[in-house]
Structure formats: C-alpha cells, structure tokens
C-alpha cells in the first residue's frame, strides 16, 4: 500500500478544554472516498479543518504527504454584495490558466456560466463552481464540506456521482461531510460516523447494522438505510430538463451529469 495522503494520529481538538474531536485515527489514501457523518456538534467540520491544516490541534498529529495539493469545497460561498465578481475572475484567482479554468468548469457542468456574475448563481451552480475551483488546482485530495447543501434531490445524486467520477479521473482521495445519508450510503467507499470520537466506521452496507450507529442515529434511521440503490431511467441537466440516458444528445458540458446509475 502506498503512503497515505493524510494520516491523523490520535487527533484531539479542544475548545475551552471540552474535546470536540477526541482521539481520532484516520488515514486517507489516493482513490478513497471517505464520508463523515454524525449529529450536529459532532466535530465534523473541526475534523475537516484539521485535515486542511487550518485548525489548531490540541493533541495528536496530522501528517500530510509532501507537496500535497488540496482542493477545498467549502460549505457556502457567501459573497459580500458589495464585491463584484464574475465566474471567470473567481476561477482565475486560483492562479491557473484560463484554459485550465474553462475545462474545470466544463467538467463540473457549468462551462456555460463563464461570464456570469457569481452573485446570480443558484445554490447548485455555486456548489459546482466551488468544485470546479478546487478541480482547477489538480488536487491530490478533495475536501468537501456538505457539498450538496441547497441542491435539489436529483442534483444531489448527480453531484455525488460527479465526485466519484472526479476521483476516478484525478486518482485523488476524497473526504467529505454529508447529511444526505441515503446518497452517502450509495456513493461512498467508507463511512465514518463521528460523535467527537469515531463511533463506528466501515463500508456503508455494514455500518447501518452497527449498534453504535443505531444508537447515534436511532433505529428508524438505521432501518430506513438498508442500502439505497437508486435506479433512474433518466437524469436532469442543470436547467432541470429531463435528459434521456440512452439517446443522449445534450449540449457538451452536460454529458457528465448523465450516465447510468448502478
């Protein structure tokens, strides 16, 4: 096995001597998709910030592979109304060339928005823009904080699928926080259930039977999560139009939203 991209050893973060993240051990390798789930206040965001290197660690260690490039997709892009910003300018601020930025936008299905103002984007478009921004950096590791927030249910499914594809294309590691339990269960390799400490972790199919998981989320949730495989005979492009999977002739740039779900 190759060296992990990031490895956490007994990571502990305390706020006012109250542990928010408690002795977490975790390794992220290339090709992994790890999803962190857990109730509010479980320390998910704090854990992610420690991985990103922007959170002071109280004890334990965060070791990061040398020259690791991280692509970060924050929860929101809340832009001050007084700051004018076009999609193009925002992408170019990554320091990458215009052609790299354009292909990243096309890859996440928002290539047509190059000249739009960031202020006028919808929630789903903003998330895809942030993803494109992370992508343009050609990351070894993608870190996403609730990437599907404010995205409708079909958009969520295609967003998670897109993340899987990006993992395959870039051969990068992915670690994300999510509340969309059903989709997480279908689209993730490994789930970590966090409640300050790691209360359980493993493959999605196994974890929903784990007593610790049932205790954290309650039996009804756990039972409803008999692994969800979604079968679609169609999907939607970003405008919400139905796109036929078999005879798909949609304009280029939308092709990745549309593929057979397993």
């Amino acid at each position: 096995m190759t060296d992990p991209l990031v490895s956490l050893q007994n990571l502990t973060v305390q706020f006012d001597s109250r542990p928010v993240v408690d002795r977490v051990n975790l390794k992220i390798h290339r090709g992994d998709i790890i999803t962190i789930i857990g109730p509010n206040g479980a320390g998910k965001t704090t854990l992610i910030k420690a991985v990103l290197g922007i959170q002071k660690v109280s004890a334990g260690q965060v070791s990061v592979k040398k020259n690791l490039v991280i692509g970060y997709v924050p929860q929101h892009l809340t832009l001050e109304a007084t700051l004018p910003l076009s999609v193009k300018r925002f992408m170019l601020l990554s320091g990458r060339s215009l052609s790299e930025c354009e292909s990243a936008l096309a890859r996440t299905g928002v290539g047509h928005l190059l000249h739009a103002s960031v202020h006028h984007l919808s929630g789903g478009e903003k998330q895809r823009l942030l993803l494109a921004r992370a992508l343009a950096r050609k990351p070894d590791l993608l870190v996403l904080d609730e990437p599907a927030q404010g995205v409708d249910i079909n958009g969520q499914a295609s967003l998670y699928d897109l993340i899987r594809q990006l993992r395959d294309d870039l051969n990068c590691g992915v670690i994300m926080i999510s509340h969309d339990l059903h989709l997480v269960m279908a689209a993730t390799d490994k789930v970590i259930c966090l409640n300050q400490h790691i209360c359980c972790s493993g493959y999605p199919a196994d974890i929903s039977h784990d007593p610790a998981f049932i205790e954290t989320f309650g039996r009804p949730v756990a039972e409803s999560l008999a692994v969800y495989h979604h079968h679609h005979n169609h999907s939607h492009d970003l405008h919400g139009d139905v796109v036929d999977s078999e005879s798909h002739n949609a304009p280029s740039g939308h092709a990745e939203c549309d593929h057979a779900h397993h």
Partner: protein
Amino acid sequence: MPIINAVLDDFFWRALIGGLGVALVAGPLGCFVVWRRMAYFGDTLAHSALLGIALSFLISVPLNVGVIITCVVLAMALVLLSRTRALATDTMLGILSHSALAIGLVTLSFMPDVRVDLTGLLFGDLLAMSREDLLWIYGGATVILLLLAVLWRGLIMSTIHEELARVEGVPVERLRLVLMLMFSLVIAVAMKIVGVLLITALLIIPAATARRLAHNPEIMVAMAVIFGCIAVTGGLSLSWYLDTPAGPSIVVTAFAAFLLVYSAAGRARA
C-alpha cells in the same frame, strides 16, 4: 525644470496634485473598506489620528510619523480586542472611535503653547499643502500601490473566502496586518486633504459609486480611483469659485456623483 517649479509654487496646483495623489490610493483601499465592512473601523482609525497629532507635539516627532504610529498601534489593539469577543465589534469601535477623538482634543488643550488649526485637522486644510506634504503623499502612494500590486491575489481571495484562501496557502493574518498598515498610512496622508472627520467619506463614497458600474473587483478599483479624482477636482473647483471649504466640498462632490450614478443606473435598470 522651471515649469514644474512654477506649478508647485501655486497653492491651488499643489492642492490638486496632492488631492489626486490621495484619490489614487483611497480608491483601492476604499474598496477594501466597503468589501470587508470596515467603514466604522476606518472612522476609528481616522479619529485616533488626532490623538497621534497631540502625541507628536508632546514627544516632538514629525506629525506624519506620530499619526502613522498611533494608527498602527490602535489598529493592532483593535485586531487583538476583536478576537476576545467580549463586546460586539461595533460597540467596541464606537467606544474607541469617540474616545480617541476626545482624548486627542483634551490632550491638545493641555498644550497651550502649541498652536494648531483644529478646524484644519478636523475638516482638512488642503489649500495649505506644502511641497513636503506632496512628497509624503506620493511616497506613501507608491508604497501602497506597490504593496497592493504584489499582494493583490491574496488580498482579494482572503476577502472573498477566508478559509478557502487559507487552504490555498494565502497568509490571511499577515495580509490583514499589511492592510491595517496601509490604512494607517493613507489616513496619515489623507488627513491633510479632508481632515479626520471626513476621511472615511473619501474612502467609501467613490468605492460605493464604482460598485454600481463594475462587474469585477479590478474594474471597481479603477472606477473608484476615477470617481475619487472627479471628487477632488470638482471639490477644489467649487472651493476656488465659490470660496467654500475645500475638504467638505470634495465630499459633497463625491456624494453628488454617487447620487447621479445610482439614480441613472436605477433608471437604466427599470
């Protein structure tokens, strides 16, 4: 160069050249004030400049140096205090802003042998601009514009999204400090033009006017500079022909441009 000498011998031209120099840096810095919601912060720093003047007399250092040092110290104190979060930021700024102004006035009154033109300090004394002032303004402007050019990407990124910037390796905290230093510098040089009470206006009105017409941060900065220059030129002309006070005239002109642009843009949209 006799022509330059002749121009610089004329107090009106000195005022205009100095005013345009300040507009050159007030544009970009004013944009940051608007983007980062620092208007009240700018006010507080500007008010502390009066305290800086008083202290400069007390320990007899050049006025500009005293003002810059006082502003820097206060800016640092504000950054540290805002981290403790004992008081809401606007409450704290309200306390410090007016206290700094009051302490400055009281300290000056303790020095009866120091004759200062208080109105000039509060509202600007542009027409008394000396050649040395011009050197300060253009020296300061060069430093600020160079810093802005070099640090631009990081400054904009940390304004858009602080955490994203941090992950991408932008030294967010250090840039915040540099921005504070630039504010202190611009306040020290702009004080001469519009006075401590009106500096914030010169920073934010041209920037706010530019916002209505710009689609990207860089364009907004360029337009803020242009509106600043219009305000300085218009205000000085007003002062020259109608014998109005120069500093307030500049602010009035800036405000008129603001109203004009917003009503025209509003009509265009409707």
